């Protein structure tokens, strides 16, 4: 189905099942521990052996010599795989560094060997016997030191280009009120709860991989490239994924090593990345240095806005696209953005939840708060004054729907914004300094091609098959709701099967495109199935109404199941998009409100209240969508207050590479969170009229926390995370 005209009325608009806050259909399995993840497929193939990964002990250089013989001779060991045993391997197009080092080492904890043994304990013990001699090379590990040599990112992707509209320099120089500040965000880790894990089994030339991956087809494609075997020979099964946040978008070393290990051992092998290996072995969100300049009239109209960002990555990698929201969020005739990329030899940087916007808004929305103060304006009023209904770079191009203003208005009323003191450091609650802050949330709505197959059997059971994944997002449930709505049955009559490359290729889970795109693919397949049902029942499909398990046309009404009496009926299709996302800018919007209390003596920050108001098209399931947003708010709180990978700038690695050292929010850090969704449908996005929310929820949260801390204390910290050491010496007198 080609979606190239705005959606008209369609069966989804009946909202009998879609739009309801249903419990997750996979919920009972998850809460009973019977949803099985990658490392838990005990019964799918016999004779599974255990792999244990050894990571490189240097950041850059070469392996001089490696003695694996003691490991080979250790009890229970079946095979040891290194680059030497692996033979020629290519690199998948989505990987920057190779997944198995040797002789070159490109980053710390890059895998250098896999030990396969009868048991986990034996593999672990044997791995410790491998002796590696390294010839370490000099590397670049310090973004600030490498900034001056940073270059314009290479490649054909126009979103990486410098942008210029009007005369920024002239307008900024002439502006009566201006801001020119630099903000920094640290390297961050996805730190999903389920470590990357894979069970690999060869059957002749055919390879089956039970793994934990957000993008099944990318995984198959990149694995085929890496091993140099046909794509058809690889099957990936990924039914449950214990969190991803972008960290499981790509093929990672667990998959490759399990496959190589299984080939060497001539047995199925399962591999999980050990938690202390994960952070340096896999990808992370790169640190940024961001310079923002804003010039306004005396009344607060933006006349000039510039956002520049510096980040680093391994050779061949890409930048953190932290400037992209600044091209679209606020009006202003004269504007520029630019990104510069430094070569660093730290582990590979890549996408983490809302890549670009998450760190970009941490800077931009703090700058907006600072600018409002310079102008003596309310921070919300300042933002609304510079709101726009068109792409500021191309005024002829409207937003498909943009209700940022309403998000702020609804939120400020609900949160009690009018009680905020414009002067910071004014509100005291015992030992605590209390403040509130706000920030805009903005994230583009991406649409992706997505396929599905839907079948109906004689019992009236509807089965959906798509390689779409559920990473906690609620895909199982919203896909079930979509099929139920389209076929006019209850969700109890729908079976949803996901995460298998044997199923039609879907959008996958990333970039908050999964919910809207994958359900649109299911919609398309259901349209095909409806046609097949109507034809079978001798009904005109355009007149047919599917409701209450029946198909009605005129005064005829037949049970849906009767169409499949002679055998199951199947509809398969893929949603593809025209240029509605080019003629119209499609984005999602929100406003985050945060109240913090900062201990007047210790500068410890506690978050007291959080509210997000979101405008993101049709909300397919308010319960699971709300969970996406509160989860993202939680990760945003982590980014504001605690998350930071500490870089060892001499040895070139992230020091705090486990869950004890890399601090993420825990229960005690997070208060009750409130989420409001504006009631809207966006007919430009898809037949579902939905957009994404999973990343919108993190966008702007960090700045809202930072702005609340400023409001509480009068201390502005532009270097995230805002830990107490950065506040302590500048706190108002505790008196």
């Amino acid at each position: 189905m080609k979606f190239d005209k705005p959606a008209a009325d369609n069966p989804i608009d009946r909202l009998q099942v879609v739009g309801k806050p249903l419990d997750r259909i996979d919920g009972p399995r998850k809460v009973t521990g019977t949803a099985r993840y990658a490392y838990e497929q005990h019964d799918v193939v016999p004779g599974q052996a255990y792999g244990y990964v050894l990571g490189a002990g240097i950041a850059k250089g070469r392996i001089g010599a490696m003695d694996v013989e003691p490991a080979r001779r250790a009890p229970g060991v079946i095979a040891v795989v290194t680059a030497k045993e692996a033979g020629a391997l290519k690199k998948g197009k989505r990987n920057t560094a190779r997944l198995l080092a040797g002789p070159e080492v490109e980053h710390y904890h890059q895998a250098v060997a896999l030990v396969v043994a009868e048991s986990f304990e034996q593999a672990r013990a044997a791995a410790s016997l491998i002796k590696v001699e390294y010839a370490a090379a000099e590397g670049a590990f310090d973004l600030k030191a490498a900034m001056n040599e940073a270059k314009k990112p290479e490649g054909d992707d126009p979103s990486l280009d410098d942008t210029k509209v009007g005369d920024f320099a002239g307008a900024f120089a002439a502006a009566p009120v201006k801001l020119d500040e630099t903000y920094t965000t640290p390297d961050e880790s996805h730190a999903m709860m389920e470590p990357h894990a894979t069970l690999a089994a060869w059957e002749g030339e055919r390879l089956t991989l039970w793994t934990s991956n957000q993008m099944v087809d990318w995984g198959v494609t990149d694995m085929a490239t890496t091993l140099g075997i046909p794509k058809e020979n690889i099957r990936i099964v990924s039914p449950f994924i214990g969190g991803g946040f972008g960290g499981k978008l790509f093929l990672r070393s667990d998959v490759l090593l399990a496959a190589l290990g299984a080939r060497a051992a001539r047995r199925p092998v399962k591999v999980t990345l050990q938690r202390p290996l994960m952070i340096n072995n896999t990808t992370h969100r790169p640190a940024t240095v961001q310079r923002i300049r804003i010039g306004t009239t005396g009344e607060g109209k933006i006349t000039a806005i510039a956002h520049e960002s510096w980040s680093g990555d391994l050779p061949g990698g890409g930048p953190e696209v932290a400037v992209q929201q600044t091209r679209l969020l606020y009006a202003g005739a004269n504007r520029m953005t630019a990104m510069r990329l430094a070569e660093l030899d730290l582990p590979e940087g890549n996408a983490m939840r809302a890549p670009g916007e998450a760190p970009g808004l941490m800077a931009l929305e703090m700058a907006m708060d600072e600018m409002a103060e310079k102008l003596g304006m309310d921070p919300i009023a300042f933002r609304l004054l510079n709101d726009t209904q068109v792409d500021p770079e191309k005024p002829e191009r409207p937003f498909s729907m943009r209700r940022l203003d309403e998000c702020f208005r609804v939120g400020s009323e609900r949160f009690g914004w009018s009680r905020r003191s414009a002067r910071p450091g004014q509100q005291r609650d015992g030992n605590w300094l209390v403040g509130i802050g706000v920030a805009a949330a903005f994230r583009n709505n991406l649409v992706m091609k997505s396929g599905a197959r839907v079948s109906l059997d004689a019992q009236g059971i509807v089965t959906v098959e798509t390689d779409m994944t559920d990473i906690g997002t609620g895909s199982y449930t919203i896909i079930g709701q979509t099929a139920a709505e389209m076929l006019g049955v209850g969700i109890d009559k729908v079976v949803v099967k996901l995460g298998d490359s044997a199923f039609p290729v879907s959008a996958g889970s990333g970039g908050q495109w999964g919910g809207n795109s994958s359900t649109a693919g299911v919609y398309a397949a259901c349209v095909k199935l409806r046609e097949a049902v109507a034809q079978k029942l001798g009904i005109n499909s355009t007149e047919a109404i599917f409701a209450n398990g029946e198909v009605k046309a005129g005064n005829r009404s037949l049970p849906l199941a009767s169409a499949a009496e002679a055998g199951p009926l199947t509809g398969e299709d893929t949603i593809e998009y025209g240029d509605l996302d080019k003629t119209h800018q499609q984005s999602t919007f929100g406003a985050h409100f945060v109240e913090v209390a900062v201990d007047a003596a210790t500068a410890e920050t506690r978050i007291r209240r959080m509210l997000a108001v979101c405008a993101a098209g049709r909300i397919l399931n308010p319960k699971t969508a709300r969970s996406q947003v509160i989860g993202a708010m939680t990760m945003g709180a982590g980014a504001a207050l605690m998350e930071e990978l500490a870089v060892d700038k001499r040895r070139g690695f992230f020091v705090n590479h486990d869950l004890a050292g890399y601090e993420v929010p825990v229960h005690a850090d997070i208060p009750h969170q409130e989420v409001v969704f504006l009631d809207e449908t966006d007919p430009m996005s898809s037949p579902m009229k939905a957009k994404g929310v999973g990343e919108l929820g993190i966008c702007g949260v960090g700045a809202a926390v930072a702005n609340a801390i400023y409001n509480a204390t009068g201390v502005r910290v532009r270097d995230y995370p805002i830990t107490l050491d950065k506040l302590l010496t500048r706190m108002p007198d505790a008196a």
Partner: protein
Amino acid sequence: MVAAGACAALPAMPGAARAQPVSRGEPVTASVSMSVNGENRTLQLDTRTTLLDALREHLHLTGTKKGCDHGQCGACTVIVDGQRINSCLTLAIMNQGVQVTTIEGLGTVDDLHPMQEAFVKHDGFQCGYCTPGQICSSVAVLDEIKAGIPSHVTADLTAPMAVSEAEIRERLSGNICRCGAYSNIVAAVSDVAGRQG
């Protein structure tokens, strides 16, 4: 204190079968018996096997999750003799004769435990990987409060202990949920606590 504690740990497993003398190169194994979800189980295990791996890899009770294997995340929380523990931080052979309750022992898909039911109702999870640990921890937390065991946020040690959101948040802080379902988990646990009266 520390030395005494360490010594005391040894006689604490008198029932554990003596390590089997084995041929060179083979792992040292020992027999351990425990009740798991009400069923007596005896395993001959490599003595390095954690309780977590005994459950997951030997009994195939994979509801208990391995998130970090280092006691940092709480995903492996199970209830041993009435107390919640990180099963990755205890060797299986140290648990001779104990009673273990895992997520599979609390309820089934067709017969959910009230805490499991509340987690579904309040959407107290997303990816589901920390969930069994959160639920085992939550069940044990309510028992701890009932038993009058104080926490860091308990203001008055002599007053009758009450379930509050602050108590729940404090006591569950050893169970990380990276999906960030905390707000909903507190709602689920409060719901169950309210019903228990």
